[in-house]
């Protein structure tokens, strides 16, 4: 691992993985698993499904790694995990099992990002509640919009990157994202009472 050029290092790891070396691929897994898992978690909403989708995505990525022909490896991985999530969402639609309790709760205690911000207990509780509501709002979106929203606003990808990942035109990304945001905004308005006052969308709006 040369610290000088991480990109070259990644390319070497990919090449080694393409030769069938699991060890090399596992280095890539270590580098990307947090990002990929988080993406899956925000799309699917529960840790168990997200873990399944993540594992499935990495397995699929390794199996198909010879199909990877340069470009952004992260985008390539995100495309695979997005597809895995999409399949899972379609499966769910056939037999919906989603419930409010599934969102947000399970990993809060174990989440150091939430713990060590110097937040007070109240602030942390508020934050938890807020995340729970936002995640619940994301869960109301149809799969295409949901994935677009997460790729854009959770992962921070550009329209072009999202278009590449989802295999659609930029215009489609634009409209899907707009609809997803409006829908989420509407959801959060409807559930304003669940949001901490600080985050209410219409706090200053007299209506």
């Amino acid at each position, binding site marked *: 691992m040369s610290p000088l050029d991480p990109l070259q290092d990644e390319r070497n790891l990919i090449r080694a993985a393409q030769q069938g070396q699991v060890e090399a691929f596992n280095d890539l*897994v270590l580098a990307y698993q947090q990002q990929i*898992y988080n993406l899956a978690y925000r799309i699917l909403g529960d840790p168990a499904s997200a873990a399944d989708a*993540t594992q499935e995505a990495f397995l699929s990525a390794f199996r198909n790694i*010879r199909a990877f022909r340069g470009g952004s490896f992260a985008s390539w991985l995100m495309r695979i995990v997005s597809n895995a999530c999409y399949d899972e969402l379609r499966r769910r639609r056939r037999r919906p099992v989603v419930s409010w309790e599934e969102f947000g709760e399970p990993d809060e205690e174990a989440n150091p990002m939430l713990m060590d911000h110097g937040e007070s207990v109240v602030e942390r509780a508020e934050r938890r509640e807020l995340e729970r509501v936002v*995640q619940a709002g994301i869960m109301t979106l149809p799969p295409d919009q949901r994935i677009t929203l997460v790729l854009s606003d959770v992962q921070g990808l550009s329209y072009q990157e999202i278009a590449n990942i989802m295999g659609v035109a930029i215009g489609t990304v634009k409209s899907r994202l707009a609809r997803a945001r409006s829908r989420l905004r509407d959801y959060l308005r409807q559930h304003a009472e669940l949001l901490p006052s600080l985050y209410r969308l219409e706090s200053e709006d007299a209506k």
Partner: protein
Amino acid sequence: MKGQSTKTGGDRRHLKKRGGRPDVSTCDEQLSAYLDGQLGPTERARLEAQLATDPTLRAELEALQRTVALVRMLSRAPLPRNFLLPQMVKAVQPRGGSTAKWSLYLADRLTWFAAATAAVAAMLVVVVTGHLLLARPAAAPGPLTPPIPVPGDEAPVEETKPVEMPMAGTEEMAVTPEVRLFGVPPTPTAESAIAPTDEISGVPMIAEAPSLAPRQIPTESKVLPDLETPHVPGTLSPSPSVEEPHLQVETYVTEPEVQGEVAAPPPLVVSPEQSQGPRVTLAEPSRSFELAGVWLALEVGLGVLLAILAVATVLAWRAQRK
């Protein structure tokens, strides 16, 4: 949503009847793209002008902005575990076309193929040189053939199944040559008879026959009755044990004559003293034929194997370079 195509022209109208649900989406798309800096300069200028004059639109933008901010501030979900692939996944090779699978398979085994190719090539070299050194003299005429029979004056032993000879002395083993003796006559068609009878006739007739035969007879007479009846057709099986040697001798005497007629050249070759000589040389041609066949089969087999391995090695090399 319908408004996508009419977004630029329809802005003002939408804004006026902002409460109407169907039109909000077009407006929202503008706002959303605006938030991401994805509007073209003219569109952005127009929207900004509208925002400056329309507080409701501003509020709408703000609500959207807050929504996006809320999503963005979602914390990273902590990893429940590692997602490292187990080593055994190695066995599951990448899919995507049988050719890819093959080239990968080959690339993985490049060294193996190279080593195998080298080994087979070496074997082929050994076999070919062996063939050239050993088989050529055998194929060559006269002068080189004698050395084989000469060194052993009881040489026929070497050439004609040496195992049987010493065995003849012992009781049990004496049976087997006998069985073979009787076994041979039933199928003595011209060619096939030559080799076997030579072998056997060479044994008893010259060197050993006089001394060994008498010893064998008493023992055989005990054993033979059991064995003769099943194996030998009635004509050859003699009733008294004593007559057997005569029978044997007679048959042997006749056979050499037949051979002598069939194959004239051998006598010429057999300048060496013994009468066994011709019989040995007679057997040789057929044997060198067999040997030649074996050599050829070995060479062809190795050649084919070498070709296959060489192709595989080249493919593997190319696959690995990719």
